[in-house]
């Protein structure tokens, strides 16, 4: 399955959802500016539905190649954590974020994201 976040025509921000035997993996890359937020919301909402249906226990979000993410897009990540929090404990899944500590916004922003729920969000430095 491949989902592309609608953005400018040069596909500045893309998201690939890969489903394999070892689980579901969302690979994001590029620069997520405000024009990408609506598409990103659709992608995250769709993925959340998919994960619930599959009864997934974990999803890996690879953000290693995300150079930039504006607040409007980041809000969608926070909302995603909120949706998982609202699930009954047995249905919750973990969001394991593969980060790139060399990129400043990731160092700061993703560490703060984990503070929303340390059981649900786990940040792993690639």
């Amino acid at each position, binding site marked *: 399955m491949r989902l592309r976040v609608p953005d400018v025509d040069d596909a500045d921000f893309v998201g690939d959802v890969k489903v394999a035997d070892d689980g579901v993996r969302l690979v994001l890359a590029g620069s997520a500016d*405000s024009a990408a937020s609506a598409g990103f919301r659709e992608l995250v909402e769709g993925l959340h539905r998919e994960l619930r249906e599959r009864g997934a226990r974990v999803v890996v979000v690879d953000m290693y190649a995300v150079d930039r993410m504006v607040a409007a897009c980041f809000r969608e990540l926070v909302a995603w954590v909120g949706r998982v929090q609202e699930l009954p404990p047995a249905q919750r899944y973990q969001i394991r974020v593969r980060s790139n500590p060399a990129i400043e916004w990731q160092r*700061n922003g993703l560490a703060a994201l984990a503070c929303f729920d340390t059981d649900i969000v786990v940040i792993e430095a690639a």
Partner: protein
Amino acid sequence: MEPSEQLVEQFRSLALERVERVEAAWTQVLGTLDDDASKLVHREIHTLKAESRIVSFVDVNMVCHKLEDLLEVARARGYAVDDDFDLAVTMALRFIAMLVKKRVAAHATAIDLPGFVRHIDAILKRHEHGRSRSGSVPPALRMVSGARMSSALRDQVGPPAVDAFIEYAVARGPRRDRLRTSWHALRDLVGIQRAVVSVAQLDKHRHSGQALARELGKQVELAFDIATAEVTAEVLHAIDVATLHLVRNAIDHGIAPGGTGTIRVRGALRDDLFTLVVEDNGRGIDFARVRARAAELGLLPPGDVAHERLIDVMCHPGFSTRSEANEVSGRGVGLDAVRGLAVDLGGSVGARSESGRGTTWTVTIPVPEIAVAGTAIRAPGLRFPVVLGDAWRPLERPNQPTAVLDLAVALGLAPSNSISSHVWTFSDGRLEIGLLSGEHPRAVQVRRLVGTPPGSLAEVCTLDSVEGLLLGAALAKLIA
């Protein structure tokens, strides 16, 4: 005593509404610098902080407090904040919303409040240098620093700063972070620092003026009527200094010892010119004394001189009619400072006075155009907004354009390899240029951030708080 369940529920509902209002207003402040939206943001968070204490939501109170610190830094920077700062404010608001809601959730959560507060503290520390150490200085004045460049030097550094922005904006990965540091250093040096002049900014002079009048045994009524206006930090600084000295002079020299009087301070921005008027109904300027003192100091030849010339002499460095300085005046510094700052910014100072009827000082300062209209496009290959200044208008029924430009190439970058952009035609009244854009051109208003001399291809602007390029009339040179 524990707050009642009803009170807590009411708080939750109101708090979430407040957070939503603040989120909308925050976006508006960053995009348009709307003064009312700015006030709403600060007021709502302050109220939420107070309400959270009443219902013992200590965690909400703590994050509100940190958020207030962030908002204060943003205000001090004229809301010219970067992505990371915007992200921190957004996350703090979402964190508050989560804390407000969490107690209704049936499940236990693992919220790391200390970790989040540490994150906010780290952001505040990084932006600390932009804050004042003195609480008495109005926020917008905190941006003015001695390290700022002269306008001539700024003109020289502007074009390379624009190049640095382009390099940073198209870079990826760790290189982008490195270039961002350089770009931000340049931006802080040469960028147009926005500020807002308002009654609130100048009210301290009303208070200190009243204190001075009491000290001198005078009864003075001070009335301020300042229309809120967006200016640059330098202009605000000049207005602030002018208000300080002209109010003090009016109290010290204008109002007679033991007497009563009224001082009115008016200010407004009209046609890119800010006019400050300080008017008193006191004794008026003793021109004979000014003339005699000027002759004594060798500044004027003996004999009759026009009042305008005498006003000019009064603003001369070191000029005072007093032979000895007291704690309030007499050093000949005040009016010199007022005129010096105004003239440096291309403005002027004048006065008219009538014996026994009072004096009116008028300071006029041109305000550089900050908000400009334009047309935004999404140029392929460029990861930032591109706005054509109002010299260029999109054509609904274009002819064959003179040339079609790939802006990425025009800016010295790799071709965009766009496959789905359309060509939109723009005209400056003489030429028709075709530009590739991934979306329909739209009319926008941007704020200038780093200016360049006339004839430059581009300057840096912000569109809805996102940094981008503003292309001017010189775009025509690319196809001429």
